């Protein structure tokens, strides 16, 4: 009886208020979803319309010379061309088409890009204060091969933002190949390993190289410039810088030493192996392993006594690497394993059998 009274005493108004609140909230959410889906559909419809208009223009322009037109004509709505979103969409589509095509259509796409003054849009982007807009602008100018803006792009190769300067460096190499690397003369920031690989991917010309420039970069105080110069020397098989590369084996930076070894693996006159051995004792473990690996490729019987000494290094990985190289350079080949004094003792026994198994596989 008492509990029934308590129940009757509960004030229902806050509950009703709460009910109205949630009902109102539901209506607002519903209206928001309706509005959002309507807006999204409108955007999609607009995108579809733009896509239709742009693809018609581009596909016509690609073959305009075949149609006997002396001048490129584009039938694009002037009003649409004043819309910055449309212009950006158009630029994106041209760039996308350029990536999928080659030959005459590509030069026609470039003509269209310039005819509609999209180069000015891209140029405007590189003067933006936001890094991602700047980077996009450089990328557009690079893909569309707008060499006339090289001055503006060159300045950005030393930008404080890493992504901006990466794009600018790629653009220069894309424009000029090896000559585009002249930014290495002025760069103060380090160039990441990834960026170095990217830059090499942009190299199209395997013919032209300037050994004097390479020598200058190999002596740079910026270690990443030296590393990149070593990669370039290897890429161009530049024998002229051989002595400078040998000097790099004394460099304090590990990456410089490793890249010098990569070069010497490709370009190695007779006494190279001996020169490499001379820097062995001053190197860290990674470089030592790299040296042993390079010797496997370029060494000869003269290095056998050096390698036999390394078989007694404290580090088992170095023992293994030495044994592998020995099995290639020793006059007896892998048969020398049986003649070795410690062939029956571990770790040599295990190392020798591992190499034999690897070779057999």
């Amino acid at each position, binding site marked *: 009886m008492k509990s029934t009274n308590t129940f009757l005493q509960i004030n229902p108004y806050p509950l009703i208020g709460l009910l109205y609140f949630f009902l109102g909230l539901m209506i607002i959410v519903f209206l928001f979803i309706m509005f959002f889906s309507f807006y999204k559909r409108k955007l999609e419809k607009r995108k579809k319309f733009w*896509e*239709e208009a*742009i*693809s*018609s223009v*581009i*596909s*016509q322009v*690609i*073959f305009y010379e*075949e149609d006997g037109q002396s001048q490129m004509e584009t039938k694009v709505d002037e009003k649409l061309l004043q819309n910055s979103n449309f212009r950006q969409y158009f630029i994106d*589509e041209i760039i*996308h*088409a350029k*990536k*999928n*095509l*080659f*030959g*005459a*259509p590509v030069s026609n796409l470039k003509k269209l890009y310039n005819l509609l003054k999209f180069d000015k849009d891209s140029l405007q982007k590189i003067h933006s204060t936001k890094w991602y807009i700047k980077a996009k602008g450089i990328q557009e100018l690079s893909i569309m091969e707008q060499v006339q803006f090289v001055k503006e792009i060159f300045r950005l190769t030393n930008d404080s933002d890493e992504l901006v300067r990466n794009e600018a460096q790629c653009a220069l190499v894309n424009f000029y190949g090896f000559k585009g690397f002249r930014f290495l003369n002025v760069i103060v920031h380090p160039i990441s390993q990834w960026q170095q690989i990217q830059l090499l991917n942009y190299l199209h010309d395997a013919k032209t190289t300037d050994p004097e420039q390479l020598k200058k970069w190999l002596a740079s105080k910026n270690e990443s410039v030296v590393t990149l110069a070593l990669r370039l020397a290897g890429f161009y098989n530049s024998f002229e810088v051989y002595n400078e590369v040998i000097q790099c084996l004394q460099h304090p930076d590990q990456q410089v030493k490793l890249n010098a070894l990569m070069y010497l693996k490709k370009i190695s006159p007779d006494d190279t192996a001996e020169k490499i051995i001379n820097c062995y004792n001053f190197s860290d473990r990674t470089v030592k392993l790299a040296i042993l690996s390079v010797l496997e490729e370029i060494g000869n019987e003269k290095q056998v006594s050096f390698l036999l000494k390394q078989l007694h290094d404290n580090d088992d990985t170095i023992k293994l690497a030495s044994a592998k190289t020995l099995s290639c350079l020793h006059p007896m080949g892998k048969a020398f394993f049986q003649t070795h004094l410690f062939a029956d003792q571990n770790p040599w026994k295990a190392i020798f059998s591992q190499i034999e198994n690897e070779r057999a596989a």
Partner: protein
Amino acid sequence: MKILVAEDEMIMQKTIELRLKKDGHEVTTCSDGREAIQKIEEINPDLIITDIMMPFASGLEIIEAVKRKGDKNIRIIVLSAMGQENVVLEAFQLGADDYITKPFSPNELSMRVKRYSVDTKEVTI
């Protein structure tokens, strides 16, 4: 020759269509794999040019559909992006006749189609 072009990128689709129409072919286009499979039944093309990566059904599924149909006269050219060698090999195993890697020249495509056009005429004779 009746050609079906299955390509989801509008610009590429229109470019290929225009190139082939200039060469005097009868071209039908579609933007996804499912639509392409339907169109094969409807128009019975002599040649299909299909992209590999497409919505709803891939280029490989289109090849399978053609082979299921059992019409050996339908030739198939596959459009693939760089680095899709494994997919191209799979396409050949399924029965594709040729492939073109993007980026490509529309004129190169035209020449390849012309080769099949000659083949078709020979078969007809």
